[in-house]
């Protein structure tokens, strides 16, 4: 019995050492190594910078197409269609693509004109980890609406 206990103890001790030491080391290293991006901006700051504190309504007029699970975070296709007239009187003036967890929350601002006929924009973005992609749409009457969808990222794209 004693021998068995002794061996079990040995295994447990080595296992604990093996698990704890590297993970803590990596965590510390990651903290040190993570450099700040050139345009650090949190999601709330970005929304504030765009809307200047105005209210943003959730809307189902915006059709945001993103994959539910993105295997590679470096290339995530994003497509936005807005069901809203594009005339001289009322139009979509801008589509902003935002993310919630990258170091810079802003991906792209697209200023549209009535010559576009339909408010549509598509691109590919990088996502560092599982997070939401948000489409913030500015209308010509000064109001804003948004739609968001979460994307599960298996491999981060901001290496």
């Amino acid at each position, binding site marked *: 019995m004693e021998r068995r206990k002794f061996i079990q103890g040995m295994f447990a001790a080595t296992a604990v050492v093996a698990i704890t030491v590297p993970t803590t080391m990596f965590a510390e290293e990651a903290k040190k190594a*993570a*450099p*700040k*991006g*050139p*345009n650090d901006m949190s999601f709330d700051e970005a929304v504030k910078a765009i809307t200047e504190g105005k209210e943003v309504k959730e809307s189902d007029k915006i059709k945001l197409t993103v994959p539910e699970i993105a295997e590679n975070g*470096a*290339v*995530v296709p994003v497509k936005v269609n807005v069901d809203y007239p594009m005339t001289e009187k009322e139009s979509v003036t801008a589509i902003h693509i935002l*993310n919630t967890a*990258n*170091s*810079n*929350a*802003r*991906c*792209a*601002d*697209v*200023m*549209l*004109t009535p*010559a*576009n*006929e*339909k*408010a*549509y*924009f*598509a*691109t*590919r*973005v*990088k*996502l560092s980890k599982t997070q939401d992609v948000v489409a913030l749409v500015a209308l010509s009457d000064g109001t804003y609406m948004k739609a968001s969808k979460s994307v599960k990222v298996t491999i981060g*794209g*901001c*290496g």
Partner: protein
Amino acid sequence: MAEARKSMIKIKPKKYKVGDTVKVDFIVIHPMDTGMQKDKKTGKIKPAHYIDNITFSFDGKPFTTMKVWESVSTNPYFSVNYKVTGKGKITVDYTDNQGEKNSKSKKVKPKE
């Protein structure tokens, strides 16, 4: 180092008439470095290098302008709608944060 970048404008569908709404796709070969990645060979952090301004214009009249940040993927792709009004030329001008300026254009030939 202002080397000419490979870029491409695609108009979809290929055949269109005056009054049709087409998709104008713009693709450019660009690293879009975030300023947070390490160079695998030297181990140093690569400086940020990304496209920041894009202007789509038709015969000199801009119809869509974009401001872009580093969160957009490497070799970016941008697609917008455009209503064909007649013969002309679509030009895309783009600049990046290191001061490179480039442009690409494509003729618009609507079918009668």
